[in-house]
């Protein structure tokens, strides 16, 4: 079995620029998106996620990858599940977006805990 490190370096440079100080903002953003989806506004929830949560999520995954690969995988898979429900031209029903936001938020809290960072609930 070949184990290697892929240098998952920077692309736009927007990843990895911010550190732990952004994580409370990430949770606040995700909680806001959850509220929007719970209120039936999947479009608004998707906008909130795409504009304010997506990049910090990549930062968090980047930070976590060196500490816990399995948790990183779960985080990115939950992120992809959400993205697949809000992209591609067809918006999923708000309850599904809500459910996936909740699942993602749980993975974010797990990631924050793994990094010994505050992991507030919504």
């Amino acid at each position, binding site marked *: 079995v070949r184990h290697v490190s892929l240098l998952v370096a*920077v692309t736009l440079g927007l990843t990895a620029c911010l550190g732990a100080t952004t994580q409370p903002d990430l949770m606040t953003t995700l909680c806001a998106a959850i509220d929007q989806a719970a209120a039936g506004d999947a479009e608004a929830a998707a906008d909130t996620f795409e504009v304010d949560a997506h990049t910090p999520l*990549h930062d968090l995954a980047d930070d976590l990858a060196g500490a816990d*690969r399995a948790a990183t995988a779960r985080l990115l898979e939950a992120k992809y599940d959400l993205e697949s429900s809000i992209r591609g031209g067809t918006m999923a029903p708000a309850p599904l977006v809500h459910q996936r936001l909740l699942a993602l938020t749980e993975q974010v809290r797990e990631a924050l805990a793994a990094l010994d960072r505050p992991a507030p609930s919504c």
Partner: protein
Amino acid sequence: MSRHATSAPATRRGRRLAAIAAVTALALSACGSGEPDNTTLPDPDPNTDLVAQVASFDLAAGPDQRLLLGLFRSDRTVLGGGSVEVRVAWLGDDPAAGGEVPLSDPVNATFLPVPGNEPDVGDTPTWIDGRGAGVYQARVNLDQPGFWGARISAEIDGREHVTTTRFQVLDTHRVPTVGEAAPRVDHPTADTHDGPLSELDSRAQGSDARLPAPHLHQVNVNDALDAGTPVVLVISTPVYCASQFCGPITDRIAELALDYEDRAAFVHFEVWKDFSDNELNPHVMEWIFDPEMGGNEPWVFLIDADGTIAARWDNVLDADELESLLQALPAA
């Protein structure tokens, strides 16, 4: 033959690397303060919060190199639309090199949106307020290896903003490049693969996994080239991507595959065999992984019918350029 030919020893492929490429470190150096990098290139503007980062993966000395620049504000709002002016300068062999250096003639860097994630911007550089992402793309001459600087000037909201950044230019490309023979690697297709489908596409997760773009996993690259068929190869990991670009770019290739299936074979290589175990797919390593520098993704390659790499795009695909090249290919 490329450095990544199939004769590469297994020990090389199996090496664990901890090093971070200098180019990455340099690019990240601009992150902390949100201020322009402390380069000694002339005329940095202390009154702007415009920040530049090089988004190219594999810059090497030579003419007409593809320079990608991410431009954003200290609050990480991305700049998009129109074009900006770029001038480059060779700083020296030392990462700390600097001093007053002559700048190249200016070239235009044009906004290149991420396919499928295009922002709503016009013909002038604008802070992107909402969804969307992209980089600025320029062609520059980098006549020697070493450390280079770039001075970027953008007209935003009626005022000129100037920033600078640094980047490393290698002596040779680490990833197979235009004019080289495409590495001949063994790789599975949907028909021949006997492991989890996620090894073919990280989006195929779970017990009821399905390939989201099965038409990108039907053809073996070697078979296509042996038959004289050009190949479009996308190497990406849509789920475990370090950037925001892999999924949309893979989707764009899947769309082009439907439109141009009579011109070329379209193939997707998933980067990870097992992300949790930190295990890359071996055929991907042959293409984009360098023992010294590591690897980056996504990549898109256009391979001629004779097996020569005709074009390649690091990080952000120029879908219009690829499409024009596909249109120039003879239909089967």
